[in-house]
């Protein structure tokens, strides 16, 4: 079961490279913002898997919950900035 969680974590961190392409080469700034949001929602799950790999899920669950809150606040703040600015 430990091997399964390890391989799932490695595969998930490889999948996170695909939105990273959109973050680096996105045509507009909203593409970059969407890629950051996608990477953050994958990182929440990756932190849970790391907790199961290190056999200490009670510590990593708190880190994952804090990361979910931080990701949501960051995305809402940047999109409210462009909402008020009314241009790209």
């Amino acid at each position: 079961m430990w091997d399964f969680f390890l391989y799932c974590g490695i595969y998930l961190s490889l999948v996170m490279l695909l939105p990273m392409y959109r973050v680096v080469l996105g045509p507009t700034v909203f593409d970059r913002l969407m890629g950051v949001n996608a990477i953050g929602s994958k990182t929440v799950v990756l932190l849970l898997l790391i907790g199961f790999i290190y056999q200490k899920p009670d510590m990593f669950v708190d880190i994952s919950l804090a990361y979910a809150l931080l990701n949501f606040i960051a995305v809402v703040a940047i999109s409210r900035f462009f909402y008020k600015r009314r241009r790209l």
Partner: protein
Amino acid sequence: MILDLVCILFVLGGLLFFTGGSIGIIRLPDFYTRMHPAGKLDSMGSLLVIIGLFLYILKIPNLLNVLTGLKIVLIAVFVYLSSPTATHCIVDAAMRAGLEPWRK
């Protein structure tokens, strides 16, 4: 043994949804169409992986594991509240900023 198998099936389904969402982010032609896999498939994949880990941690039901499982369910509830809100915020900001939709 059965519980391990169910956990593995849930986690693999979640990883499948994550893969589909990431390929959609690469392949689709426009910002508004790319927002569709980024908003939907990420929340579905998170829900499936979190259900799998919740079933795995309840295999030894003492007090610490039950509390950790409740926190994992709290993460799932928060993801289902926050992911559509973040998607709506980004699309609303893009419409207000004047980004043109894709035409054929």
